[in-house]
């Protein structure tokens, strides 16, 4: 992983407390252009909180995060470089997928917003439902729209929280292809997931998070998938 100034996203001792509870504890990590960090961890490990801080939605209690050379929360120019896929859809139920994605595109200052929105929906293979209100779509279809919304502006950094949730095989393949394409074009990817196979298939680095801390971080090339999955399962079981 990038450790120097060239990282697309880097954190230094990032910590977040909610009252007496420490959700993220002293996390230092960096992800460079074209790299993908997959973070695994049991429920409540602090993964989502970490992503929310990287996305500028949540302020850290201490430590700091930077996107490129700008420290978060940064300004409009920094947020313009980030795309967020949350386990919530971030969509408006009363609007159609086209309207949702076009709205996001315009907010991000994308020129030809209509055309780009159509392209993003097409990449997620949901164009045929583009004019149906989001409230009538299934969970998986909403997730496809959500991914289109997050990537319509070609972000340099994609923060994806459980992006495969609810997706069928076609949707999962479309998402994997999209994220692989973004990575190939130099985007950095931070991916939070419980699915070890899907996470490792995209990752250049993998980490396990537990009780707010990154307890294991390694390059993908040094990871034995079966051993890694076993360690992760044991960790989840010990937290149950």
């Amino acid at each position, binding site marked *: 992983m990038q450790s120097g100034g060239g990282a697309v996203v880097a954190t230094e001792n990032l910590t977040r407390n909610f009252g007496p509870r420490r959700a993220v504890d002293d996390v230092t990590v960096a992800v460079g252009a074209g790299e993908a960090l997959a973070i695994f961890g049991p429920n409540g490990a602090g993964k989502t909180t970490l992503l929310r801080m990287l996305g500028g939605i949540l302020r850290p209690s201490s430590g700091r995060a930077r996107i490129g050379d700008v420290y978060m929360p940064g300004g*409009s120019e920094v*947020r313009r470089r980030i795309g967020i896929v*949350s386990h919530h859809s971030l*969509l408006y139920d*009363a609007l159609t997928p086209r309207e949702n994605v076009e709205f996001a595109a315009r*907010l991000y200052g994308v020129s030809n917003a209509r055309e780009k929105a159509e392209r993003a929906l097409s990449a997620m293979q949901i164009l045929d439902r583009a004019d149906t209100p989001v409230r009538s779509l299934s969970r998986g279809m909403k997730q496809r729209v959500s991914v289109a*919304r997050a990537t319509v502006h070609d972000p340099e950094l994609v923060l994806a929280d459980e992006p495969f949730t609810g997706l069928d095989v076609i949707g999962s393949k479309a998402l994997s292809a999209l994220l692989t394409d973004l990575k190939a074009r130099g985007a950095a990817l931070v991916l939070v997931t419980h699915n070890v196979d899907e996470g490792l298939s995209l990752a250049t680095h993998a980490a396990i998070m537990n009780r707010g801390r990154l307890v294991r971080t390694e390059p993908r090339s040094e990871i034995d998938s079966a051993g890694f999955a076993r360690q992760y399962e044991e960790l989840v079981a010990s937290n149950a």
Partner: protein
Amino acid sequence: MREFFRDAWLIARKDLAIEFRTRSAFFSAVVFSLLAIVIFYFAWDATAVAAIDLAPGVLWVIFTFSGLLGMHRSFGVEQPDRAIDGLLASPAARESIFLGKAIASLVFVLAIQAIAIPAVGLFYNLPLGDVAAPLAGIAFLAAIGLVAVGTLFSAMAVNTRLAELLLPMLALPFFVPIVIPAAQATAKLMSGRPVGDAVAWLKLLIAFDLVFIVACTLAYPFTLEE
């Protein structure tokens, strides 16, 4: 600066599109307004209180409470799928989000006023034709102040479990400095006094508008912190 207003307009347009599509808050507010007018009308003893003494109070009670319905909706539409996170993570400035929300709420409140004012004139047999323009001006000025306060507290209340209850409790005390001069100026106009007689109240109304716009815009980003 251009982007600031562009983003605010995008957010306002999106909120209005959602309200136009669902019409839930608007119809609720219209029904509430008309019911309130009818209830006040049948509770009114015309021999004890003149219509011109009662009507300004009725109008401002209606504007205040029906406006709250729209203001609650302002951030309520962001909640179901945490769309607010999408807004916060976007390049739009926090103040721009506030302005966009306020513009949409302002349109909502003005639309309610456009229905309620003629309805009150009709029920209480008030000849509003001569004072329609200045009355609309007062309603507009008051709506700005109400919306500034309401949008701020809507953002604060929306994350709580009792948002519907908390919003009126938080906002109503701050509505008072807006409603008093607006109701007083309305009473003067409805009683046939010249606009000049209401100028002092209008100045007070404008002053509170400015105070609330500045204070609420500055305070708004803090309501988004968890």
